[in-house]
């Protein structure tokens, strides 16, 4: 479980997040949704420690341990329990698919090469990616890049998985596959998964806990069933922005 308590974030005096408090529950896919520029990515970057939160009462607590108060060196211990899927995948260009997935194993385990290969093949099979071990990131499709990035993120069996717009830039079919894959992995590995998205299909498909951010503030929380019947005006405008979703409602 990840607790976000009263966090705020400003850039050059301009407030991007304002006093946000929420809980991301264990074993669930927790979605942060909102329009572009609403502060979703900033919130996620604060959670994983890539951005420092504004000084004050704010805290980010991972299973009872206050992560945001830790010095950088001690944060690294908690970070080893996190898997992060970046928007563009963030695969290492000079490494093959196998080397990318093996990288955290090389850095943090004492496994033999054979054991590491077995683990890499196991996670690549989990994300339905076979026969791509020796390809470089530039040689594979966008959907495959996301799968490799997911495989790398789960290689060390993390307790927390963060995904920043996991299906951006993908066709609807592949986007759905990625959503389902993340959801299945969350259940299988009992992870606390936090997904940052503005894709309504994802929201309706895998949103077990949804937090809606509007102009840097938390406006609504609920699940995928509740979101269809909410009275919140801004959220309705966001969810039912297209003719298709309005008709579906």
């Amino acid at each position, binding site marked *: 479980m990840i607790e976000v308590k009263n966090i705020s974030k400003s850039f050059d005096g301009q407030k991007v997040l304002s006093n946000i408090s929420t809980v991301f529950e264990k074993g669930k896919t927790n979605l942060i949704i909102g329009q572009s520029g609403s502060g979703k990515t900033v919130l996620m970057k604060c959670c994983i420690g890539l951005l420092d939160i504004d000084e004050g009462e704010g805290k980010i607590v991972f299973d009872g341990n206050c992560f945001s108060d830790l010095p950088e060196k001690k944060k690294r211990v908690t*970070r*080893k329990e996190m898997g*992060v899927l*970046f928007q*563009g995948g963030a695969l*290492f*260009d000079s490494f093959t698919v196998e080397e990318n997935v093996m990288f955290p194993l090389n*850095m943090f385990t004492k496994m033999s090469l054979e054991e590491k290969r077995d683990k890499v093949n196991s996670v690549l099979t989990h994300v339905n990616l076979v026969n791509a071990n020796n390809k470089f990131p530039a040689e594979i499709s966008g959907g495959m890049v996301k799968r490799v990035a997911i495989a790398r993120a789960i290689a060390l069996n993390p307790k927390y998985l963060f995904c920043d717009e996991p299906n951006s830039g993908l066709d609807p079919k592949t986007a759905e596959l990625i959503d389902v894959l993340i959801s299945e992995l969350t259940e299988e590995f009992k992870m606390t998964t936090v997904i940052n998205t503005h894709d309504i299909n994802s929201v309706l498909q895998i949103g077990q806990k949804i937090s809606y951010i509007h102009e840097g503030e938390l406006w609504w929380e609920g699940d995928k069933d509740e979101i269809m019947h909410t009275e919140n005006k801004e959220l309705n405008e966001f969810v039912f922005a297209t003719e298709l979703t309005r008709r579906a409602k």
Partner: protein
Amino acid sequence: MKFLKDVGEFVSLMLQAFRRPDKGKVFRRQLMMDFQALGTNSIGIVAIISLFTGAIIAIQTSYNMDNPFLSDNLIGFSVRQMMILEFSPTIISLILAGKVGSSIASEIGTMRVTEQIDALKVMGINPANYLILPKITASMIYNPVLIIFSIFLGLAGGWAACYVTGLVPIPAYVEGLRSWFEPFSVTYALIKTVVFAFIIAAVSGYKGYTVKGGSVEVGRASTQAVVTSSMLIILFDLILTQMLLS
């Protein structure tokens, strides 16, 4: 103010980079790759420039010394002194600042804008240590080798020029190379080279690491890395020469 901020950021980054590597085996692998990328891949350009420059120095010195009272062996002496004292350590370092510096800045800068550095950080890895320390170490070890190689090729270039053009007899050229030799001049050249190697790798690493934006900014960082390293090389050339030779 911006200058002070840059200096502060640079020192802070170097303090992060100069830590014990997370895993020795991974560091050694990175180091080997950087020996190849930053050192071995520069041999060609260093060889061509050094060989031709040695030849040019020999011809120009000969052209400017038509006084019959000046000994022929001064040409060999001039080639040796110029190659050891200035050309190989400084000019080759400036060339490496262009080749290697832009490569380091653009590689690390691209990793920054494509979130690869963020990926390293959230994995619990110290990105500055993982990316920059091997490059600084590789440059500081390999550049002196390149400079020694450059000195010998420069001397060979001068010899070839004398042999082909008949400017001076070869024995006189060789005698000039061996005359009035101060071993400290080689130490001086190597000290300069190591300092310049640090400047090239560290400044370029810093410029790449602190890129914000996209491909345009990466290109700009690459240019800034070359310009800043070159200016610092010239500045430290003056400071070290004053300190070591005055």
